[in-house]
């Protein structure tokens, strides 16, 4: 295998990682600040993709579509937070699991009712089609490069938001000690709503960015949701840094395992078995990594003891 | 009176958390029928020390001896089985169970898993008479059927003590049992501990000086991980070193 191909695959892994990061950042914040296990987070991913597809179909403008993928999920997030989620903060995790599981059913069926059972169309704009030549003769997809850059910007943005702004301080206070933010006289319910909406918007953005190169369909959020949970657990719940590192780890590992495991097994066994075993193991790799991390660090890489 | 026996003996205990020294060459002994109190300002390392005795933490250096045997390598659970029983700073009871059941848990604790699976959680006559005896000793008998989480703070502390006693300890490690008790409850507990210490060695960590001075046979003073003075109540009262470090000259 050439070095170029290897680097291209590495970039693919990183791109996948940043996409997972967009999903997990919100999830980990919501868990860290409100202590809420939000299974419905994948639904915001789906809502983001559907609203982008809808707006793109209406206006033909991809950038308006991306904007919509931030706004609609945030608005729906606020509505749901107001009407249902708010009542769950004081409940134990189990009630949250049941309620947000029910929300998945509601969101999925409502989306199917509105948009029909077939996948929707969402494509990237012409200027982002095709490839770009990176230094070292590496051919790489323009759009995927853009996803990496957006992911980087959002990671940096979140870093500044958490460490340099009042909202960030409140969020950190909330993560450390829920009593403390009351003492500090912070409007908790507003803080919670903002965090929830922010998480929903990030998930929606991820949905739209990914929807443009995959398929916009009902149920697209759940597989990503499970991986995002894997990411935040590896990183340590509540830690944005952990989410970033966990996401990149999973992204690169998953891509590399898909690439190398079948090749590796072909060395030691017959081809068709090797392909099948290799790809089975590649599918398990993320979970294997999570299990290993938890065996050695029961609260994730950057989690609090 | 039985001969004086060393129940607990610490020698040369050292412990660091990173750069912070929390125990520096600590040596002390608790002998039978003695209440040995450990006092010291917040952050002096008292709770760390009790954790090293109970086995939750391991010292970096030094020896912990329980009944003349080195127990450094033993886990917390193994030390409990050797009779080293501990109470917590915050009342540690099973809130959803009744007072009786809480004590019954303590009575039944020695069974193996298999035996535990095949025995009903019921007391036989000898067990229940033992539970009632413990309840009477701590004057909890009227609260027998109350759910533990509904008890008053003082009663919760008593229940915790009752659970510790019900396990038949060789030595009791008490971590601030007086914390949060009002005057009346405090003096009741003092009386109680006075009667218990007659035939039970106790290692007590406490802030409440009144209680310590009323109860202790021997006092050690811990400051910044070091024992700066050790001796009888009178000696400690008079010690300039102690007053400077901790008591602020008030006594």
């Amino acid at each position: 295998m050439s070095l170029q191909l290897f680097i291209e695959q590495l970039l693919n892994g990183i791109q996948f990682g940043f996409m997972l990061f967009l999903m997990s950042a919100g999830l980990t914040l919501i868990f860290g600040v409100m202590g809420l296990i939000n299974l419905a987070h994948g639904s915001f991913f789906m809502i983001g993709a559907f609203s982008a597809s809808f707006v793109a179909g209406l206006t033909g403008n991809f950038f308006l579509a991306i904007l919509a993928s931030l706004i609609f999920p945030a608005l729906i997030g606020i509505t749901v937070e107001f009407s249902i989620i708010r009542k769950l903060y004081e409940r134990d995790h189990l009630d949250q699991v049941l309620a947000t599981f029910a929300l998945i059913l509601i969101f999925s069926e409502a989306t199917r009712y509105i948009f029909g059972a077939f996948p929707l169309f969402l494509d990237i704009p012409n200027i982002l089609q095709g490839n770009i030549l990176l230094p070292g003769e590496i051919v790489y997809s323009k759009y995927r490069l853009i996803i990496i850059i957006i992911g980087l910007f959002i990671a940096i943005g979140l870093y500044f938001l958490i460490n340099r702004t009042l909202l960030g301080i409140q969020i950190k206070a909330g993560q450390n000690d829920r009593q403390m933010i009351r003492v500090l006289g912070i409007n908790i319910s507003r803080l919670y709503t903002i965090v929830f909406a922010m998480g929903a918007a990030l998930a929606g953005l991820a949905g739209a960015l990914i929807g443009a190169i995959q398929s916009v369909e009902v149920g697209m959020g759940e597989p990503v949701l499970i991986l995002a949970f894997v990411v935040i657990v590896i990183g340590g719940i509540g830690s944005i840094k952990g989410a970033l590192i966990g996401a990149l780890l999973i992204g690169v590992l998953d891509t590399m395992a898909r690439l190398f495991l079948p090749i590796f097994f072909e060395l030691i066994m017959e081809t068709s078995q090797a392909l099948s075993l290799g790809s089975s193991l590649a599918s398990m790799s993320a979970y294997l990594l999570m299990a290993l991390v938890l065996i050695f660090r029961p609260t994730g890489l950057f989690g609090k003891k | 009176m039985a001969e004086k026996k060393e129940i607990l003996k610490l020698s040369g205990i050292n412990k660091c958390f990173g750069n912070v020294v929390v125990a520096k060459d600590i040596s002390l002994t608790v002998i039978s029928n003695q209440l040995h109190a450990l006092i010291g300002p917040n952050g002096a390392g008292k709770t760390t020390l009790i954790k090293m005795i109970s086995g939750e933490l391991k010292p970096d250096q030094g020896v912990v001896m329980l009944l003349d045997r080195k127990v450094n390598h033993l886990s917390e659970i193994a030390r409990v089985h050797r009779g080293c029983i501990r109470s917590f700073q915050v009342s540690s009871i099973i809130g959803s169970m009744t007072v009786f059941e809480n004590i019954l848990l303590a009575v039944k604790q020695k069974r193996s898993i298999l035996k535990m699976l095949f025995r009903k959680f019921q007391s036989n006559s000898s067990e229940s008479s033992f539970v009632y005896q413990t309840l009477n000793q701590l004057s909890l008998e009227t609260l027998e059927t109350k759910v533990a989480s509904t008890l008053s703070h003082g009663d919760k502390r008593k229940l915790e003590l009752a659970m510790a006693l019900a396990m038949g300890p060789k030595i009791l490690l008490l971590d601030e049992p007086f914390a949060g008790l009002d005057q009346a409850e405090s003096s009741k507990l003092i009386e109680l501990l006075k009667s218990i210490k007659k035939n039970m060695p106790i290692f007590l960590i406490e802030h409440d000086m009144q209680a310590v001075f009323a109860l202790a046979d021997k006092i050690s003073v811990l400051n910044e991980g070091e024992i700066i003075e050790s001796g009888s109540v009178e000696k400690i009262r008079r010690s300039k070193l102690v007053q400077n470090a901790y008591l602020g000259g008030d006594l």
Partner: protein
Amino acid sequence: MLTEKKFNLIIVLGIFAFSLIGYVMNEPYFITLATKIVILGIAGCALNLILGFGGMVSFGHAMFFGVGSYVAAISAFHSMNGESIDLIFFDFNGSSQMLFNWFLAVIFSMFFALIVGSISIRTSGVYFIMITLAFAQMTYYFSLGWTKYGGEDGLSTYVRNDLFSINTMLPLNFFIICFACLCVVGFILNWVINSNFGNFLKGCKENEEKMISLGLNPYTLKLTAFVISGAITGLAGALYVDLNRFVSPTSLSWQTSGELIVLVILGGSARLFGPLLGAIVFILLEQFLGEVTENWQFWLGVILVLIVLYFPKGVSGLFIKD
């Protein structure tokens, strides 16, 4: 309001009556539904042993359900096609005997539970939820690629296994077999939670530190409970194979784990047999709503949300007084 004993009795008799009504009215599907309720109820109650009483939220119980299913199905499959499995020491020819296949399912799921539990119980809280999920996902992906036994297509056993000389293909007979299993499992679980062990387990859920200071090892306690729960879930899996005469990786998927948790919470995790009521409510809702509207999942979602918000103790909380 009822006492817990009366509640249990009414639920169990209710299920039995439901299937009898099906029999009398010649609506065998009622019996099939009741059988499904019983089987999922068994799995739910087993999960509740560790979830409600041990405080361990396992998001990977589909693994034990699926392992039990696959073991029973593979044994039945080999007995049917006459191919034997070479186990080095001897050749295993499979079996069409229910009792034997149940036994195998229980042994294997216990074994899995022992391994998974001994690793997972080192963690707690959300980390425990996720590590159990991780193991279940691994077995799920393994089964997808295991083409010898059908991979994603699953494995058909065509007929139910035999038990003595009972005609197990008759819905009522099979229901009674499952119902008997439910009674036995109910007795065992009830015994466990009322034993010394069960009470220490409850203690563990509330205050692990205290259990240590009582000289008990919470790890062993929890692991034992985990293994018991896994074993019973495996039995439910084996029964489910006989109900459907079929097994597929779906029974190992995270959705199955999620549904088991839903049964537990819906019914109420504070009561041992809450999940049985959860299974009744969930399956009947699924059935009833599915016949009324195509968008039944939407309405199921709405009902579940309302139940969480307004009946925090689950449906069983409505009937049982504290």
